[in-house]
């Protein structure tokens, strides 16, 4: 009986050895190298305004301005993971008047951290004139963006061209998007 038991246990142990078997070298620490680098695109601001929008109370409305509180750029996830940002603007102008588009970035203390502007050219023939502008945020400029929580958008009619009244033909359209380059995990 004992002999038999030993024999059987020997067979079973042998069997278990074949089960335990070999492994080739693996390194689970590699998971620490995990780094995702998605590129996220999002709409920003837009407007589509006929020339008549720039005429109010019987006079030209030279400057239209509004501010937007945006608490996206200084959120932890954004601050930690965004390594580069591009803001792409496109205007389509069919008004015989040039406009300046200005974007200001302000921080908590209402201090200006960054500003840029570009000109949407006048369209003497009222054909669509397309102007594009790309603002790239990297390094110090990216830090300024991450410190901002308020964006001021200003559109200003420049002098010259046709006067703006309630029968001025044409319109100005603005499209904008943000392209955010993210790197999660390991940042060298």
């Amino acid at each position, binding site marked *: 009986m004992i002999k038999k038991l030993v024999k059987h246990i020997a067979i079973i142990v042998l069997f278990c050895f074949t089960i335990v078997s*070999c492994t080739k070298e*693996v390194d689970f620490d590699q998971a620490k190298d995990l780094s995702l680098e998605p590129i996220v695109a999002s*709409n*920003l601001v837009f407007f589509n305004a006929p020339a008549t929008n720039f005429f109010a109370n019987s006079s030209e409305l030279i400057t239209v301005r509004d501010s937007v509180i945006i608490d996206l750029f200084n959120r932890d996830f954004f601050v930690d993971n965004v390594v580069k940002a591009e803001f792409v603007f496109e205007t389509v102008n069919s008004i015989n008047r040039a406009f300046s588009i200005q974007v200001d970035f302000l921080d908590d203390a209402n201090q200006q951290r960054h500003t840029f502007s570009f000109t949407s050219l006048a369209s003497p023939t009222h054909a669509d004139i397309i102007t594009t502008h790309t603002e790239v945020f990297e390094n110090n400029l990216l830090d300024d963006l991450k410190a901002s929580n308020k964006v001021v958008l200003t559109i200003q009619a420049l002098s010259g061209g046709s006067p703006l009244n309630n029968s001025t033909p044409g319109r100005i359209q603005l499209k904008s998007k943000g392209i955010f380059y993210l790197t999660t995990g390991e940042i060298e």
Partner: protein
Amino acid sequence: MRKVSFLFGLITCMSFSQNKQVLYGFSEIPQALLLNPGGEIKNDWYFGIPLLSHIHVKAGSSGVSVYDLFANDGIDFNGKLRNAVNKMKPTDFFTINQQLEMFSGGYAFGPSYEKNQYLSFGLYQETDLIAYFPKSIAVLALDGNANNINRPFQLNQINLSGEVLSVFHVGYNKKVDKDFTFGVRGKIYSSIANFNSTKNKGVFVTRTGENNFYNQIFNLDLEARTSGISSLIDDENSNFSNDIAALRKRILFGPNLGLGFDIGFTYNLTKQWKVDASLLDIGFISHRKDVKNYKIEGEYSFEGINPLFPETDTGQTSEDYWNDVGEAFEDLFEVKENANKYTTWRPVKFNASLNYAFGKKQSKDCNCLKEDLSYLNAVGMQFYAINRPKQPQLALTAYYYRQLFKSLRAKVTYTVDSYSFNNIGLGISAHLGGFNFYVLADNFLQYKNIYNAQSVSLQLGFNYIFNKNEN
């Protein structure tokens, strides 16, 4: 041609999860009766050694192996991850199944000259997890949406469920005549914890827009249901042992109960040919207590914000307009909780096999065959199917069974499943007096590098068996 592609599609869907192809039909092992309550019975009575009578673990991944991702081969991990994501399909899945028998036993009864009925019972604990690979979410995380304009990211690819439960069961088996045996098993399920998120819908897509560059469409209809979990997470104490104690109480008749049954039969076509089949876990669990469900539902199409010339309703200031945009996003992603009771169905399993026995033992005394001896060899085909959230998973097995010595039985299986056409399984059952030990495992060809196996399975256990017709 269409038939061929259908067949190929069927085979690629084949899988292993919960399949115990080595144990099925291995009638010397009492636990085989759990895979077919109408199976053949070869003992008078038995009891399982408590907590050691059936230990089963199975883990698998239909798309990638551990080695694919973690091989120490100097290749950049992120590159390997990207390859894996590209290679995998939304129907690929990861699964873990574990069972531990607390106790079990069985005994034959009936007329003393022929005990043709058998009662078996037991309690086991089971863990079952399945998570499908949410490919679109993985691509979104890897690449983002900027280079995927117009590509819909499907949220229905989020599909996972898991449960921990205990099952108390009593089975009845009757040998009606020398050819036909049937059996049923009633089960009481006690859910220890459950979560599932299998009916998600919706899409996130960035399309080319009208008023702005894009039209970003969020269409979310996501739901996760849980029971038995929130009381563990939300309780004030951070003492883990209290949670363990709470879980232990649920093993026998916890707050969320269910009912189910198994049925099966064996029919001898001739002395050597035999068919059998079983349906397992036809049952449900009603989750009524300690339920917490989470829902995100909403639709929003975002074109950006228009602070200068908002197309506002009358009297609305641009401030109001901006608040509306913010609120729309908050509403969209707001997680709503409820405690609505729900019912889950257990994954129904189907087994069937066709078997041929041959090769009777030669008697030592005379050069003739002993009439009452059973055959030493058997070959056969087994079919297995399990109902899963997305689609049933199937497996086909061919096997060879052999009685090696009087006290040692072995079975070799060859199984076709979704990752490989070369899953070799092996099992042995040793019988020493009344003492029985068995160990069964599959995917042997992968054991030269176990990390390269997409699935591994192991069952082992100890029983004490009193056999009739000891010879």
